[in-house]
């Protein structure tokens, strides 16, 4: 069991602290044929799942009027950077209710003072 923990530990990355409801900007390496470029996906974190190397988080954004959700494995080597753009105030762990809301109602209250 211990050897397995050591292996998993080796794949863990330094992750900036972010919470559910925060708006994050995720830079991800994308391979197009031979070329590699970085794509950013900015949206609200609507959930975090799992623990250890298996942990993943879900980001939702509205793109040209259509809701788009992306699930990222937190420790994936393809993720270059996770930047917290805004901190939100929410009272639940999964923000699935945002899927049924439109326009202003689909917003998360922003934190007015910064979290330590």
């Amino acid at each position, binding site marked *: *069991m211990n*050897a*397995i923990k050591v*292996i*998993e530990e080796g*794949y863990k990355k330094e992750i900036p602290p972010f919470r559910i409801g925060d708006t994050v900007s995720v830079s991800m390496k994308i391979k197009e044929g031979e070329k590699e470029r970085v794509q950013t996906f900015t949206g609200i974190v609507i959930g975090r799942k799992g623990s250890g*190397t298996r942990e993943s988080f879900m980001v939702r954004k509205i793109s040209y009027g259509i809701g788009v959700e992306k699930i990222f494995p937190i*420790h*994936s*080597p393809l993720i270059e950077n996770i930047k917290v753009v805004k901190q939100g105030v929410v009272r639940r762990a999964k923000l699935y209710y945002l899927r049924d809301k439109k326009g202003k109602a689909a917003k998360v209250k922003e934190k007015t003072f910064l979290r330590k």
Partner: protein
Amino acid sequence: MKGILGKKLGMTQIFMEDGRLVGVTVIEAGPVRVLQKKEKDKDGYETLQMGFDKIRKGKNVTKPMQGHFKKTSSPMFRFLKEIGMEGFNAGDDIRVDIFSRGEKISVTGTSKGKGFQGVMKRHNYKGGPGSHGSMFNRAPGSIGQSSYPSRVWKNKALPGHMGDERITTKNLKIVDIRDEQNLMLVEGAVPGANGGYLIIRSEAPVAVKEN
């Protein structure tokens, strides 16, 4: 053929260079001590007998076995198996580095015991409806015809003991070799429970008929 003995430690997931997350089995493979070299003239076939998993005290090891270990002045081992491999002599140590990343291997182990099981779990029979007055729930059904053959055919799939048998899984891919820790990471699952002993070979052995 090359081979080594090992122990299944468990499974986990790792990231590949291209970002794929793959499920892997972690195997503690070797180091293994060659205890005896079986020779064609003497034994009629050529293999290497290897020992894996050292016994520290060994008060329950029989005297004849103790003598066998003493011959190569090696420690005592729990798991001894022969592998038809060349290039090593009695007393040598074999480590995981005989294998490399990306290689295909076959792994032999003892599957988890399932006890006495019915025909649905053991042979994938469909079974009958669960309700609506059906009395044919998980039963095997008819097991043969009448006057001919007047008996049940051989190898007829029926309930019985399932699991706890020797299973070889072929064409498993080595994802990583960690030489310093004697670890081997194999893509996918390997037979048996965690802690079970395994025989890892570059190819599955084929029975050869001698004429």
